């Protein structure tokens, strides 16, 4: 917790609860965001297809992890079942695209389905905390996994669904833009990601975000202050589910297929790892972590198939020594340099 005399406290009470970070300096923040957007927009003109493919994967994991961190870093609830919502988004989108070739419809349908599931399961879950919450979400995730794996008529069983088209962006009566190449699909993902990240950024800095952090720091104190703890937890759970679902919908058009492992709890672990790697105390942490995780994975598999041993060791080192994650570490370094 920083003191009120800290010269780097920026405007807004929401900021006062977070640790100092790179993005707490408004000017720098906007500058970095603009530069990053420019690079991302220019990427298909300069980079190989494989780089584009990796960037799409980073965007998907970033959305997935950002939603997870609203639940974990902001609200203090560790969910081990986020893959369930990711899979609902992915399977629903795939089903829709196999019937109606319209990408917006697929994405919206997938997000809506994940949102409904998150509300229903959230109502059941949010009164439980700590280990019980983690166990309960694990159970939800594995239930969804077993449905994806066994309900052959709908989900295709362990073969999954195949031949999912990269359907055009079709708005009835207006336009139908072909996005079947990976470069074009990349722009769809980029646009969706920018809008979704900005929306969540506003949520995190709103009074809602502040209330969530108050619940994380002390449930009873937040309750005494008049915050309806269960309702706010449900909202956070739903938003996390929506973002997991959104991330899920972007996967089938990329891979043209969707299989049960997307629902497995090892998939639930990915946003956990990305968030931990990037840092749970900053908004950008999960994005940084997603990029690091995908790049790290890509580099390590060039040398060895035993990539998860390296990942596991990284997790252990992070938990033991660097619980702030990479984003806060860099942020703190920069602040110290400027001082």
């Amino acid at each position, binding site marked *: 917790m920083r003191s009120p005399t800290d010269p780097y406290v920026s405007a807004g009470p929401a900021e006062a609860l977070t640790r100092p970070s790179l993005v707490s300096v408004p000017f720098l923040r906007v500058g970095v965001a603009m530069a990053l957007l420019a690079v991302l927009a220019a990427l298909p003109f300069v980079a190989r297809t494989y780089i584009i493919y990796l960037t799409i994967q980073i965007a998907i994991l970033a959305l997935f992890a950002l939603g997870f961190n609203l639940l974990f870093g902001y609200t203090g609830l560790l969910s081990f079942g986020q893959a369930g919502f990711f899979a609902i988004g992915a399977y629903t989108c795939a089903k829709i695209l196999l019937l109606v070739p319209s990408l917006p419809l697929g994405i919206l349908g997938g997000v809506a389905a994940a949102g409904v599931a998150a509300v229903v399961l959230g109502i059941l879950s949010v009164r*439980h905390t700590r280990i019980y919450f983690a166990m309960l979400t694990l*159970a939800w995730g594995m239930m969804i996994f077993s449905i994806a794996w066994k309900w052959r008529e709908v989900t295709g069983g362990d073969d999954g669904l195949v031949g999912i088209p990269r359907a055009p962006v079709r708005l009835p009566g207006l336009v139908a833009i072909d996005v079947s190449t990976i470069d074009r699909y990349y722009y769809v993902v980029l646009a969706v990601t920018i809008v979704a990240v900005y929306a969540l950024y506003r949520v995190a800095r709103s009074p809602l975000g502040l209330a969530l952090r108050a619940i994380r720091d002390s449930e009873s104190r937040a309750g005494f202050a008049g915050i309806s703890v269960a309702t706010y937890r449900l909202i956070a759970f739903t938003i996390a589910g929506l973002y997991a679902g959104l991330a899920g919908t972007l996967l089938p058009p990329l891979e043209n297929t969707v299989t049960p492992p997307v629902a497995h709890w090892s998939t639930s672990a990915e946003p956990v790892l990305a968030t931990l790697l990037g840092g749970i105390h900053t908004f950008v942490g999960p994005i940084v972590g997603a990029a690091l995780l995908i790049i790290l994975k890509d580099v390590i598999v060039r040398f060895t198939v035993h990539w998860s041993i390296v990942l596991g060791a990284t997790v*252990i080192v992070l938990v033991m020594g660097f619980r702030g994650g990479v984003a806060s570490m860099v942020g703190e370094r920069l602040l110290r340099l400027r001082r």
Partner: protein
Amino acid sequence: MSDFVYQGLIGLSQAMYLWLISAGLTIIFGVLGVLNFAHGSLFMLGAYLAYTAYGLWGFPFVVAVALSLAAVAVLGLGMERLFLRHLYHLDHAYQLLLTFGFVLVLDDAVKLVWGGVFKIPSIPRFLDRVLPVLGRAFPIYNVFIIAVGVMVAVALWLLFERTWWGRMVRATAADREMAAAIGVEVPRIYAGVFMLGAALAALGGALGVPVRPASPGIGVAMIVQAFVITVIGGLGNLSGAFVGSLLVGVLSAYGTLLFPVFELFFIFVIMAAVLLLRPQGLFAR
């Protein structure tokens, strides 16, 4: 009818592997308050080490099992002393994440050392017989497993209820600070409990070697079932874990027979239902 009894006995012997891993998980949670994600990996490691000593190096089966127990207990000691110990003051999420890191490392290390293939050596000769049950041949090995499981249950009960060490452990579980204040060396109790829990998981894995294929995936498969059992029995409740193991073991034996497609689904439905309706476990007093 004979099918029904036979399948029940099979389920009972399967339940004993579940009991051994759940017992360790429960003891560690009950005393340390840590839910050890890596417990399935310790089970798996116990299986691979026993396989190496028994199947590859030709040690007698009992010696191989003992070696594997000792090795995994030492590994558990290392995990507790060098890593977990530094996280007790933090949120439980970090302990869960640390043990998850161990899952990734151990599961991959096993693939690195032993390769990804299924391994199954022959049953030790003194256990390689069958027992006629209602006109069908029931393997003696399964009887042996059931006997070991029951013996471990009795031994644990004696250990915790009848020995001085057990009393210190119960005091630590009930109130860590008060126990420390009256002279219990809490850090040593923690280390001892973690070693005991690790050894129990390894015993389960090692005993399965001659009949259940050891594969890199068994750790994860076992830990998920052990979670279900500890939830059903009540987190930290040892007798609950025993009954929960019997329930899950026998039910999934009938489940695979009656509705193989949705067996997995129903297990998690039960887990979620218990968490929602009776989070203290079905058998809490």
